[in-house]
């Protein structure tokens, strides 16, 4: 298929491929993009087989750049973006590299996907460029991306998998971006090295007066957990216990054989970090493997060792434990967040746990149980997370504070 496609008019809300062509140079991509709109109005076949005029409009929301280092990541990202349909950005560019030691080449598919939002509206179209760069070219992502951006529109950079944060390659692309999107829970190993690099980027940006915002799917996925924890302290009689927090324990799923450093710790870390940053707690002692005398242990060393640390509020110390627990859930998944607090001789215990597609909050004050509260928390797909990210504007300072606290908790490299 090359160029315009004549297809039947789409059903309302259904995305339809209106244009598809292939080219092998950046100039060729620009020419193809221009052709899409110079040949507008695109026509579609009406129900009776006659050409039907349908004026198409390009959406003007943002540039979405995806840098995928492996073909399978590029395919998955493309599938996610196609499912966004109604929230499609104006121009999507997926860049992946291949054959790094071979000669330089570019292979790009240029497409226009359109959707009819309403019967009385024009078709709304979004451009989609799937580009594979071979050889030396593949190492210059910024040089590929720059000429293909729609100017004056914000740029969201989604880097699935393991982004080489801190590398020249990433920093060059970030210079053009308004938002960096990552998924900390998908990082290899314990993920802590990349977390530190991410926080360093945020810090450098702030120092330079930059406007880069950062979104981490791992943090977005915890939104319902945060609501559940916060809801407990909406009770006026329990709010003062936030100033008397004594322990925070997060248990996460781990698999046999994962051993030290084998399980991604980003999600458990984010839970503690969010609490610490919201409550103004500082890190007194970063997390480290629990010594036997701490009493924090797991029955099965094969799944990794617990980490313990301390937060500080003035002279008060809050014990933190991040504990692996054998579980069939994906490794690194939060199983429970447990809080203990004391005030005027009373002890408050809050246990927030995941049960199927819900988060349960159990609260006990000096042994007296409060009614259990359940929050629906179905696992959010990458499509939903990306959609939310695309719609976000500006820097989320709560998220930034939590990121910083997470890096501090993780301690220096």
């Amino acid at each position, binding site marked *: 298929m090359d160029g315009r496609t004549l297809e039947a008019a789409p059903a309302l809300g259904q995305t339809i491929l209106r244009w598809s062509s292939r080219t092998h140079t950046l100039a060729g991509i620009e020419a193809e993009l221009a052709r899409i709109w110079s040949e507008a109005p695109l026509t579609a076949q009406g129900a009776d087989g006659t050409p039907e005029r349908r004026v198409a409009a390009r959406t003007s*929301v943002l540039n979405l750049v995806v840098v995928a280092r492996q073909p399978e990541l590029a395919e998955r990202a493309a599938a996610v973006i196609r499912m966004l349909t*109604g929230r499609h950005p104006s121009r999507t560019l997926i860049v992946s590299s291949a054959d790094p030691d071979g000669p330089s080449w570019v292979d790009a598919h240029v497409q226009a996907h359109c959707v009819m939002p309403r019967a009385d509206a024009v078709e709304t179209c979004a451009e989609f460029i799937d580009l594979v760069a071979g050889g030396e070219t593949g190492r210059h992502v910024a040089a590929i991306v720059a000429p293909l951006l729609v100017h004056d529109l914000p740029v969201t950079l989604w880097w699935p998998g393991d982004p080489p944060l801190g590398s020249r390659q990433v920093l060059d692309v970030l210079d053009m971006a308004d938002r960096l999107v990552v998924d900390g829970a998908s990082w290899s190993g314990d993920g802590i090295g990349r977390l530190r690099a991410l926080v360093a980027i945020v810090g450098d940006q702030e120092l330079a007066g930059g406007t880069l915002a950062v979104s981490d799917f791992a943090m977005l996925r915890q939104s319902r957990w945060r609501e559940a924890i916060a809801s407990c302290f909406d009770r006026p009689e329990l709010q003062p216990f936030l100033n008397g927090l004594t322990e925070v324990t997060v248990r996460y799923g781990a698999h046999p054989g994962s051993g030290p450093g084998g399980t991604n710790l980003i999600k458990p870390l984010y839970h503690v970090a969010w609490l610490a940053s919201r409550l103004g707690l500082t890190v007194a002692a970063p997390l480290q493997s629990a010594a036997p005398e701490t009493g924090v242990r797991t029955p099965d060393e094969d799944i990794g060792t617990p980490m313990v640390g301390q937060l500080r509020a003035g002279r008060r110390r809050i014990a933190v434990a991040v504990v692996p627990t054998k579980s069939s859930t994906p490794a690194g998944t939060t199983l429970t967040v447990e809080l203990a607090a004391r005030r005027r001789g009373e002890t408050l215990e809050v246990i927030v746990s995941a049960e199927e597609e819900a988060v349960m909050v159990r609260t006990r004050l000096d042994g007296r149980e409060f009614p259990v509260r359940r929050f629906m928390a179905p696992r959010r797909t990458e499509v939903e997370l990306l959609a939310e990210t695309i719609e*976000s*504007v500006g820097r989320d300072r709560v998220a930034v504070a939590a990121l910083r606290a997470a890096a501090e908790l993780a301690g220096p490299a």
Partner: protein
Amino acid sequence: MRELRLERTGKRRRRSSKEDGNPLREGLRLERVPDPHVMVVFGATGDLSHRKVFPALAQLWRTNLLPVDWMLVAVGRRPYDDETFRAEVARALEQFSRVPLEADVARQFLERIAYHQGDFADDEVFDRLSVRLDEIDAEHGTRGNRLFYLATHPSAFAQLVGQLGRCGLDHEIHGGGWRRIVIEKPFGRDLDSAKRLNREVGKVFRESQVYRIDHYLGKETVRNLMVFRFGNGIFEPLWNRRYVDHVQITMGESIGVEERGSFYEETGATRDVIQNHLLQLLTLVAMEPPATFEADALRDEKVKVLRAIPEMSRVDLERNVVRGQYGSGWVGAEPVQGYREEVEVDPLSETETFLAARFQIDDWRWSGVPFYLRAGKRLPKRATEIAIQFKAVPHRLFRDAAVDPEPNLLAIRIQPDEGILLRFGSKVPGLGLDIRTVTMDFTYGSAFSVDSPDAYETLLLDAMLGDASLFTREDEVEAAWSIATPIVESWVDAPAPDFPNYPAGTWGPEAADTLIERDGRRWRRI
């Protein structure tokens, strides 16, 4: 998603007092789920409940924005039981849901509905209701929190409020157990009745417990109006008497009164839409920026606008208000009957189906800028729009041009095809210096191809969360009635109007054109 939208539109949720001390709440804009509660819908078997309320609640349930510990008690006169009523609601959801519900989601939602049959005049019905609500609290963990929703005929409002008060269902419990009441429009039928109803409601509920709903305020484009004005730097400096020539607010409906003949006979266009929807739009266009985006700050500014509209004398009313009633005609290539031939309508009815009016706002910003409002049924198309007509350039520079550039215009389309249009002059390409009017057109549909929530979803969730920003306050309702009441009262002893005075499918009576043309202006062609 809802809070994301709020953030995008610049409107932050007002924090309730209990949240003020909870530092964990900061930044939780996306996830706020109302407290567990029981919602009690009176008039649950009616059209409004089936078309709007239940579908909106089901969407909130589908998107996990309702608490798990939530129950709905539907109160009505008709003889249903829980099962038969759930089947009835299921049918309504199939017909009216904005997004089809998955079977499992619909089942979970329906399981949370209970039916309570009885006559609103019967004390025993409310005594039983009170007991049943306590039982639901015990069984479902709804914690004594109650949201009462009056979706009945307005004549039942006072009686219902009285019954709730008699049973103590308004009493909030210290340390938990809030009680709120949502009252549908119309809130009164004139200033006196609105005051009376406010008094009756006030005997039982505190103002902070009362949520008077005008669903227009929940519409995405209406909410965007505030963002457009106060979230953009380039428009507000022009938003005043120095640059604005006049403002037109139009609400056209192509439909007639349909099955609502008897209702419309009692209301007419002034009570049905001018007193509430159009005056609300006017306040949002004309108000000063509120100090904060909290409910009372916002409503304070709206009330100031209503109070700045001077009361019109009888002479003023004759000069500045035009009423109309449609006769037979053609709408959308279909012949339609006149109003007086509609079902349940008096063949000699003097009810107005159209109103055009010219208002002044006597304040520093708008003095001398007329606001023209018009609304009617059986107009050529369904369209609601606010048009800000700017003044012409002070100096005719392009004397050689065939025509002068038209003054700039900013049109905010509320429905359908929601969006914003800016009109300006541009040189026609060529060797000459011809000027043509062109438009920059922003449509929600193409920029954000995301389905907007229904206004009822927005408003119901706000009421559950205790956010009254988009609900009308007691003094606001009375201020609006103090503008509308003299209009309808001036007709009581006026000569019988020459009705019908506009054919269906036209933009109202000729007198409406005269009203604006007298000022050297004309209605915008929509």
